[in-house]
């Protein structure tokens, strides 16, 4: 099988066309008039930063959600898909990022679910199903996957291969691969590429969404770049060098108010030292140090090991490697260990992991530090009131009364309550995992200010954000994770959006060294 690009494909008319697609979620526009045109026999790459609208577009195409406005055409016919079932019937097959295999069904059952080879009187011939599945997998070069195993028993990479195989076996007109390589080993990526090329040579349309620029350069014929819900550039891959792609992905942006950085943290004492931390499968080997009073930014594409890193440091994830806090080795086996050592976490999802929504602002604020305000197991009202008052005024939470339910607050105010609870715990190391996501600009500025105040008090902050702009302007130093290791370390002037992004996609080398 040759990897040569089929330029013949360029001659045929646009076979899949999306025009003016809009979609908003609760007032936030994820797609703002997006266009995409793919031809038959073409491998079309779709790239953009996190939140640029790629995944929303994929969901529209696969029937998981419906666009508010916009047209989809396949081979000149208008297409309106209202469910995944309809999309599949129309010849669009999607390899979802979150895999769609049923965990307790066997490989064979998953591969042909709803299309089993022999069904009589509502009963499936499992023997025929197993041999058909084994044969189909063998033809795809996956003959070693045991068809009698349940999906649950397979390693993640095999599940992803199976998901891809399932889509290929439907022989669709359009094959959508949403981050389909994220869990694959290098040889498996080669396998996938060979399959996708063969699929395109047969006249199929492959839509390939990936964060990895090398893969896109290697595989695709054309590329479309998304930014902030619209397509900002499209063309043959040969005319789109990496630098141009990065530039398109970044674009120009509204500047935000960032507090000035504190004097350079050089020579300051190390508060937390992480040595060789790993938590399979994504976090492989991370070593870093966080100094007193600094914000250490953690960047990288989603799923490069950031979440396991933060969870491991908070004792919420099994890990290997060493964590030293002020030169003391810690055993972090449960969150209580981390809290006792002075490590606090602002989690990704404040509503399910951070706050007790049905409790009052007061209860949420004091929940982490009840020991400090009680005696003999009973809360002392005066101390509680003092603590709550000082926290609430320091955070300027917009509320009627501290007895109000947290549920009724806006996202930004909820985040402030969570921040307040963590502040009351007086951490030495504060872990912030995408703490500004879904928070309005005003509250963001306040959170930044608070972070600086904490730094001035000597707290060390490990700060992960999916917002590159924020990382570039807030962090004193940045480590960029790639494939579960620290791919790049940026300091001082090196901390620019384009350097972070380039390091994240692993395409460019350090600009300043």
């Amino acid at each position, binding site marked *: 099988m040759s990897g040569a690009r089929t330029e013949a494909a360029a001659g045929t008319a646009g076979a899949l066309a999306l025009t003016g697609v809009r979609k908003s979620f609760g007032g936030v526009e994820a797609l703002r008039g997006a266009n995409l045109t793919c031809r038959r026999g073409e491998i079309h790459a779709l790239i953009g930063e996190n939140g640029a609208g790629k995944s929303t577009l994929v969901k529209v195409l696969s029937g998981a959600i419906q666009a508010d406005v916009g047209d989809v055409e396949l081979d000149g016919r208008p297409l309106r898909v209202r469910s995944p079932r309809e999309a599949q019937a129309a010849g669009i097959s999607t390899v979802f990022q979150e895999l769609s295999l049923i965990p*307790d069904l066997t490989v064979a059952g998953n591969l042909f679910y709803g299309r089993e080879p022999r069904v009589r009187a509502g009963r*499936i011939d499992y023997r025929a199903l197993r041999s058909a599945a084994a044969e189909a997998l063998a033809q795809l*070069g996956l003959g070693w996957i045991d068809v009698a195993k349940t999906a*649950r028993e397979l*390693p993640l990479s095999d599940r992803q291969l199976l998901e891809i195989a399932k889509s290929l076996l439907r022989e669709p007109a359009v094959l959508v691969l949403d981050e389909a390589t994220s869990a694959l*080993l290098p040889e498996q990526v080669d396998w996938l590429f060979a399959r996708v090329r063969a699929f395109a040579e047969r006249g199929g349309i492959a839509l390939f969404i990936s964060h990895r620029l090398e893969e896109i350069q290697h595989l695709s014929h054309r590329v479309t770049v998304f930014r902030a819900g619209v397509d900002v550039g499209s063309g043959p891959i040969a005319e789109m060098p990496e630098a141009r792609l990065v530039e398109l992905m970044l674009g120009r942006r509204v500047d935000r108010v960032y507090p000035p950085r504190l004097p350079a943290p050089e020579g300051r004492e190390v508060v937390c030292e992480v040595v060789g931390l790993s938590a399979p499968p994504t976090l492989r080997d991370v070593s870093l140090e966080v100094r007193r009073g600094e914000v250490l930014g953690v960047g990288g594409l989603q799923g490069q090991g950031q979440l396991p890193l933060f969870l491991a440091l908070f004792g919420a994830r099994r890990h290997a490697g060493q964590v030293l806090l002020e030169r003391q080795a810690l055993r972090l086996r449960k969150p209580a260990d981390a809290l006792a050592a002075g490590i606090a976490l602002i989690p990704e999802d404040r509503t399910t992991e951070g706050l007790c929504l049905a409790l009052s602002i007061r209860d949420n604020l004091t929940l982490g530090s009840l020991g400090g305000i009680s005696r003999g197991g009973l809360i002392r009202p005066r101390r509680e009131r003092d603590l709550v008052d000082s926290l609430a005024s320091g955070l300027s939470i917009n509320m009627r009364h501290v007895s109000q339910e947290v549920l009724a607050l806006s996202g930004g105010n909820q985040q402030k309550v969570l921040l307040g609870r963590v502040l009351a715990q007086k951490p030495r190391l504060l872990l912030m995992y995408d703490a500004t996501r879904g928070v309005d600009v005003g509250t963001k500025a306040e959170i930044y200010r608070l972070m600086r105040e904490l730094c001035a008090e000597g707290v060390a902050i490990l700060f992960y954000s999916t917002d590159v702009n924020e990382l570039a302007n807030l962090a004193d130093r940045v480590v960029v994770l790639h494939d579960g290791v620290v791919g790049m370390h940026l300091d001082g002037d090196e901390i620019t959006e384009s350097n972070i992004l380039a390091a994240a996609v692993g395409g460019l080398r350090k600009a300043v060294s």
Partner: protein
Amino acid sequence: MIPTTGVAIRSEGRRRLPVGLRLTWRDVPLLMPYLYVLALGTAVFVLEPRLIDGPGAVDARFSLIVPLALVAFGQTLVIVTRGVDLSVGGLISMASALLATHLNESGPLLVLEALAVLAAGVVVGVLNGLLISRTRIQPFIVTLATWSIWGGVAYAILPIEGGKVSPGLISALTGPLLGIPKSVLAVALLFLVWIWLRPSRFVADLIAIGSDEDRARLLGVRIGLRKIEAYALCALLASLAALWVTAQTQAGAPSGGDQFILNSIAAVVLGGTSIFGGKGSAASSIAGAVAFLMIPDLVFTLNLTSFWSVFFQGFILIVAVTFNSLVQLRTRTA
């Protein structure tokens, strides 16, 4: 460059036996109940052979097993979808009360009346299924409420134990057929029904729903319909159990169904079906029911008071659940 065979992209290598000769850890919980039956049966036989090979002993044992096996069968279908049906208790009581008050002596009318009771059971099950799939209220809550409702209706029909059971019904469901006790035939028939039903699209859909409802929806499984079918079947089987119990005891009992709620769940759990859905076997649940009902026999042979039955039933349950849970932890990959 590009591999043409699969060998190069294999992420892990292990030799394997052909399908059918393999026993994976996953299957072990579903096979354990047969081991329990064997162990308990041997113990009882060694200590008191008359309980197994005495005159009428087999029929007596199996007559007790039949209704629990029926309810456990239905309960398995529901539990596989990650639900539970507590209303079987109220339903059996209600059906039993109806049978002890509204049945003819014999003849074609008796058959019609018995069928009407079964049909009422199906309606009750459909109601459960509708409530659960339309309102998305927890099955536990829905069936807790309907258990209470039908239990109340049972008392309205037959305030105290007794009534008059049709001799036709009694003779139809007791004694031997072709020299084999009908109770043994009934249990055997249930096993066969499961063997027939196991590879059906219906069961595959129930497993998909219990395993991951959102993904099952992505696959196009008609979730509402399947749940209604599962609860309806469960209720039908519970009504059959009521028929059997009423014929055996020759009396109606307005609270006689309640014991079947927890006993059926216990039988299902002993059988190795996961209460988290996605995995189960009605045949194993029947074996679980057999094992569960052997414990009173064992307690009897040991000359202990009946209090110890409940004690040992709880004990074996916790041992089985602990074992299954450990197996589950072992088979779950990261």
